[in-house]
């Protein structure tokens, strides 16, 4: 029983955090928003140089061979700095899907190497959403068709842009034709791949939501210390303190739930589905309360375009219903608790009782 991260995992997180703090500042992200493509090849290259795209690519393909546990720290950093979807979708969820494919799938190793090197952008079309993130820039798309996984070149799809409230999102409706040439997995193994990918996507979002919650809390703490009313910092008033203490509480309680879910996913625990949805629910509650209390503490400033809170608040609202919406994740946990015959004894936290 060891509920801690390794020194390497913690140091890597710290390095990425320091890097994103300077290279992905809010001004930079706002500039990228204004571009048509909404993405910065320079930033992506820099992130690849930092090793982010190599994180979970197997060592045989030149990667670092780390897994969901390491990503549960890194996704929080991606959320905290508002890094657009494409990085996590490609380097975490996409790399995970490719790694889990049969070795005889044509191009598997090559794609993984190119993810590792930061050269490949991919997009994933899962049935949990009618929309696909970053299809416009993707070289290839991994598309769901029932239990089948299809690898579709960008040239074989049509996409219609659908703007989101989160200015960093680039969503498309995608139309395409499944063929036997594009199919790379099917049947039971295809279904298992998609289930694992949904869990990984949900966990990626959970980590990002938690990072977003922390960012909104930090912005609110800064603001409430600087802003004065009645002759003192508004952060000295108990009503404001309690708003922010409650957000801190939600964040702290969500962390171990997220880490356990990552550990379950990495180790194929039989209750991974439940643990992932539980993590999503906790992280989502944290970010939802952070957004609500952050805008309250910011007052009218929080309702403006100018103040950076909007960037993180809107992203948290947008992400909270992706890779399985809230209803899906709530229902998955609820069904397990109410309708299974499992005796949920205190000893059942980590093992079947």
């Amino acid at each position, binding site marked *: 029983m060891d*509920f*801690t991260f390794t020194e390497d995992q913690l140091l890597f997180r710290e390095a990425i955090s320091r890097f994103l703090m300077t290279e992905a500042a809010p001004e930079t992200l706002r500039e990228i928003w204004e571009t048509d493509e909404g993405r910065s090849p320079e930033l992506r290259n820099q992130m690849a140089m930092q090793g982010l795209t190599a994180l979970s690519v197997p060592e045989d393909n030149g990667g670092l061979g780390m897994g969901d546990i390491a990503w549960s720290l890194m996704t929080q950093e991606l959320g905290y700095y508002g890094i657009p979807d494409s990085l996590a979708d490609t380097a975490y969820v996409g790399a995970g899907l490719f790694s889990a494919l049969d070795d005889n799938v044509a191009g598997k190793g090559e794609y993984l190497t190119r993810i590792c090197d930061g050269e490949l952008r991919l997009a994933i079309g899962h049935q949990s959403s009618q929309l696909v993130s970053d299809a416009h820039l993707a070289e290839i798309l991994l598309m769901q068709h029932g239990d089948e996984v299809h690898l579709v070149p960008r040239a074989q799809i049509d996409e219609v842009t659908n703007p989101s409230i989160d200015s960093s999102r680039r969503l498309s409706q995608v139309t395409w034709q499944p063929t036997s040439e594009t199919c790379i997995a099917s049947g039971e193994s295809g279904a298992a791949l998609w289930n694992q990918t949904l869990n990984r996507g949900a966990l990626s979002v959970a980590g990002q939501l938690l990072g977003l919650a922390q960012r909104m809390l930090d912005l609110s703490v800064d603001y409430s210390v600087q802003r004065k009313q009645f002759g003192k910092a508004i952060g000295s*008033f108990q009503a404001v*303190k309690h708003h922010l203490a409650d957000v*801190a509480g939600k964040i702290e*309680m969500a962390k171990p739930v997220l880490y356990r879910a990552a550990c379950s996913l990495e180790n194929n625990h039989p209750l991974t589905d439940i643990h992932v949805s539980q993590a999503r629910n906790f992280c989502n509650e944290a970010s939802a309360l952070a957004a609500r209390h952050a805008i309250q503490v910011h007052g009218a400033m929080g309702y403006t375009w100018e103040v950076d809170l909007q960037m993180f608040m809107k992203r948290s609202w947008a992400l909270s219903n992706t890779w399985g919406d809230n209803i899906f994740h*709530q229902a998955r946990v609820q069904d397990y608790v109410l309708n299974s015959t499992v005796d*949920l*004894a205190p*000893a059942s936290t980590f093992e079947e009782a």
Partner: protein
Amino acid sequence: MKLTYSPKQQAFRLEVRQWMAANVPKEKLPTYDTKEGFELHRQWERKLHEAGLSMVMWPTEFGGRGCDLIDWLIFEEEYYGAGAPLRVNQNGQLLLGSTLLEFGTPEQQAHFLPRMASSDDMWAQAWSEPNAGSDMANISSKAILDGDHYVLNGQKTWSTRATYADWAFGLFRSEVGSKRHHGLSFLMVPLDAEGVTIRPIKALDGEDAFAEIFFDNVKVPVEHRIGEEGQGWHVAMATAGFERGLLLRSPARFQQTVRKLIKLYRDNKVSADRDPSIGVAVAKCWSDAEAYALSAYNTVGRLSNGDKIGAESSINKVFWSELDLLIHQTAMNILGCTGELLTSAPLAEERAYWLQGFLFAQAGPIYAGANEIQRNIVAERMLGLPRA
């Protein structure tokens, strides 16, 4: 990160499980807030102690088993999972015990800890005073040094277990004219000493759950002070940290209550499902209790890496006290019109235990530091917001 138990941990779990299965009383003991119930709980504690299971994480020389905190969590899971009685002496065993282990002299440890483990001494806490509740630093009860003993005068209140306990521990002002958290000393006081008067306070359920303690020139030997004179606040804050942080309300206790709630829901499913929000609440209770368990394991991991429990202990306290309210409110909603019945009501049967729990849950956000104070601690110490 590896979230599986070692063979040694599994063997320990099995040992505790088997012992509990053979020894936990079949009938629920009467509440320890009655004379009879108090003594029955003391007998249960002695039985636990004889099996070496009373204070598993204490060193063996003090009546423990020298277990680590993971073993302690495993023990708690099996203890509450078996439906074993609540721990009548926990104020001593968990709060004072931890303080003695950290701050006590070897003589104090050798004398008090074994008698606490065996419940030969039963302990009450004596923190609050009529004018020192949430504002605990406003303590005015005095302990004035006179040769080899202190002379105590003043009043404590809300002293849990004090009606029947043998000893109490708390803070007293030992420096005349000192203010706030300066000049306080941490003392252990025998409740049968001359000049001590106990006046029980009936709680919401009509039982003597706590008491006022009056001190009228009570002599306490100087050997009964823990830590240096005037350093009592520092010693007490460490105790308060243990209390909120990990020990007082182990996750297993809530997990067991939630397990019963799930059964209650499943047994009354047709009725409960008339309102879909009941199922939502039951699932949330399970999820929160499990999150609290995960948080405890995570904290143990961080402690073993040399971290200290900080303001997170305040987050814990708010979390479990609010969870306990939700669990019991949900149970009352499922019970409907029989929820109000006392244990003596023929129709109530086992169900009346939910009412007892519901009443006690109301106290959770108040005792061990009101939740308003806990939120202030989080805001000021963790987030760095300015003091009012």
